[in-house]
């Protein structure tokens, strides 16, 4: 009897397994979908930039390439987001008739209003980052941290993490772990446990 019973239950197993497997797969698939697709879609708010900027075109025609707009000032500070006066140096009147250029001149240059760019690489307020130390002394290229933005023809939407308020670009390649990894790989001597460089106050003023 006990053998029969065991047999009969053995026969029922495949159906139950199938059901469980199906449920398992369903749950598994749903969560994968939620985790990889829905969660990021909900987590990041997309905002268009006020103007579309063509880096590729500008680097070609500007006299000094990237340095024309992103330059070091005399005191070592870096022109990360150039002000409207830098744009005005070239754009005094509409020349190409493109939408972005017309808007630039009409809404910003003519009114001397700064363009409210959403900055992809904006670090939180607690971070002090010196471009001079990284670009001039360590001779890093812009793309090490900023990727191929210099080759872009249009400005991507800005993606803001709704929980933290940080930019997605910053989260993906410019977090403290990224700093620490790079400092580790390039063997910077120092005392900080995180970056193996001096003290906390180097980056957190």
């Amino acid at each position, binding site marked *: 009897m006990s053998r029969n019973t065991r047999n009969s239950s053995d026969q029922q197993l495949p159906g139950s397994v199938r059901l469980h497997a199906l449920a*398992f797969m369903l*749950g598994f698939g*749903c969560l994968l979908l939620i985790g990889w697709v829905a969660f990021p879609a909900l987590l990041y708010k997309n905002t268009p930039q006020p103007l579309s900027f063509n880096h590729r075109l500008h680097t070609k025609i500007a006299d000094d390439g990237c340095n024309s707009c992103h330059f070091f000032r005399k005191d070592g*500070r870096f022109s990360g987001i150039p*002000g409207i006066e830098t744009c005005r140096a070239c754009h005094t009147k509409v020349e190409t008739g493109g939408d972005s250029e017309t808007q630039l001149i009409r809404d910003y240059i003519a009114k001397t209003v*700064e363009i409210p760019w959403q900055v992809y690489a904006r670090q939180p307020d607690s971070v002090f980052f010196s471009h001079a130390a990284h670009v001039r002394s360590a001779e890093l290229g812009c793309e090490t941290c900023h990727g191929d933005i210099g080759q872009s023809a249009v400005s991507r939407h800005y993606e803001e993490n709704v929980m933290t308020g940080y930019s997605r670009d910053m989260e993906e390649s410019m977090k403290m772990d990224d700093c620490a990894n790079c400092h580790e790989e390039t063997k910077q001597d120092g005392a900080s446990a995180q970056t193996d460089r001096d003290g906390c106050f180097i980056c957190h003023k």
Partner: protein
Amino acid sequence: MGLGASAGLTLTPLPWKLLDDISIWTQNWPWVPVPKAGVVSIHDSICTLCPGGCGITARRIDERLVFVAGQENHPLNAGGICPLGLSGPQLLYTPNRVMSPMMKVDGAFQPISWNAAISTLVSHLKELKQQQLPQGLACLAGSGQGTVSALLQRFLTAFGSPNFIPSASIDDAWELLTGQLTGSRFIPGYDLERADTILSFGCDLTEGWGSPIRTMRACSGWKENGAKLVQIQSRLSDTAATADRWIAINPGTEADLALAICRTVAETARGQSHISAIDSGFRHQLQAIIKPGPSLEQAEGITGVDAQVIQQLADDFVGSKRPLALCREGADRSPVASREMLAVLALNAVAGNIDRPGGLHRIKRVPYINWPEIRRDDVAGSGWPGENLAGPLPSPDAFFKTIAEEPDSPVGILLVSDCNPCYDLAASDRIKRGIGKIPLVVSFSEYWNETALAANLILPNHSYLERYQDFPVYAGLTEPRLGLSRPVSKQLFDTRYTGDAILETARQLWGTAGRAFPWKTYEECLKETLSDQWDDLKGRGWINLPRPPITSDNAATISYSVFSNADIETSAGEVHKYPLMILTRSSMRLNNSAVGTSPFMMKSVSDTVLKGKKGVVDVNPQTAEKLNMTEGDMARLITPEAEAAVMIHLDDGTMPDTVVISQGLGHAAFGEYLDGRGVNASRLLQPVLDPLTGQNISRTVRARLMPV
């Protein structure tokens, strides 16, 4: 399904990302203030918080000032800055700023409009005029230098009052003394950088002396180039601790030691040749200063310094290539005893270092405010300014003495600009009572300090970071400068230039016919006054002042009888009743001026100076044992003037029978960071007026300590 969901979840970034983001989210609560991002810009100016005149660089994010640092390429401080200068943003944004004109009504301050405030002042001034009492107007000013002081003085003169009373600096006292001694007024400029043997008579070189950062840089230079610093001081100060040699001396006897060294040097062949090279008139006066000085044996008895050590000091000094003797300064560069000043000047003269590299340079003040004289018929009243209530070189202490002596105040309106007499004058409790007798006290303070709180009307000035201000810097420099502070922050509150308040008051009193004040605004007045130099000053922030040659006409009028009084700067107090002597200590971490100490600086004050709210005093262990007291005990510190509760700290670097107390504490204003913390040393002191300069020179007072 749950199992599948869990497994699926672990293969997505969701849980890890969520955990990370939640942790970041908890660090960014919406109520945690995060400064707004914006365009960074830097702006140079000069610091006017002390007479040092350092260059500063302000960092702004858009319009908002966020940081003040030393200006890198400034010739005085080369990027250096003191804790007070570094506190710029705290001093700008502090809730302790007076944010609009204020009037006291029934004992409480209420905000009023500028129109109402100036009309109130004008109506009181008109009343004084009607009573034919123009001299009933007086003004206490932080200094006699700069266009704001000049405008205030001009206003008083036009009103018919001689009672303009700036707080004299040691430079004013030097001018008076050297004018009388040599017939030519000058201020010493010390060539610190090139001197090789420095005798410092109690100068707090690392705690704020001369132009403080320049002095500190020179001290570091001495260590590098092998120059020798001998510190002569009654206590082991920071300067004494870092000097090559510390000579412990009885309090208040620095002049005796300087004169004894002078006498010894004058007897050497080298000393003789130096003396004979000096102009005849000055030489004659010099001998008159040195002659009554003590012999080595007498000096040993007076100063407590071994005669052999004095002889050695004299030999080293005269034997060195570039000797330099430095004279002490009082708090905020106030004068010290004329006897001490002249003794140090004489010592430099006998060492042959006057106007020599590494020596003492004679610097003449160069007037740059060249407004036409006020004519008698410009004076609105009947009177023409007569004698100042506060003496020929007016002293705020003498002024308050007069106020205290009269049953009714001879002054009906007192203007107070850029000073805080209710806190920093000796016997400050008496000063507060004196100020209470004056019917209308008008303060121009930008901070709620003790004197602003005692005023009836406040017309607040802009902060030093929001205004233009001309600022001559002498401060012991061999190359004096005129500096211009420029606004590095936008104006935050409903404040006005003191200069504009004066001009508006003059307009309302005398109409546009007020010929003595032809300017529409203070900025116009400043620009016109600095005329050709305006562009340079606005661009670079400073210019070198010319150094006209010094000619001595030997018209000496000094009475040397004062030199016999060895204990001149110590107020009377019976020795048996008050067996101890209080010495005051200055520090870069505490500020004694009208601006107060910043919260940031208070955090750096050690608990051997301030423990919680208790003021700590240094006492020698032997003295404490005699008094049956030990570390941490509370005691009553009693002087003939006042008493205070203090905590005892045992310190071997303090002389037996002396008590060392810090300046800059014990405020009754400035909010929670300063109010009621420690003891105000000025409260315990008694004013002692110097017989030659008329200025208060009391830095010490007799005292006793009693157990609580």
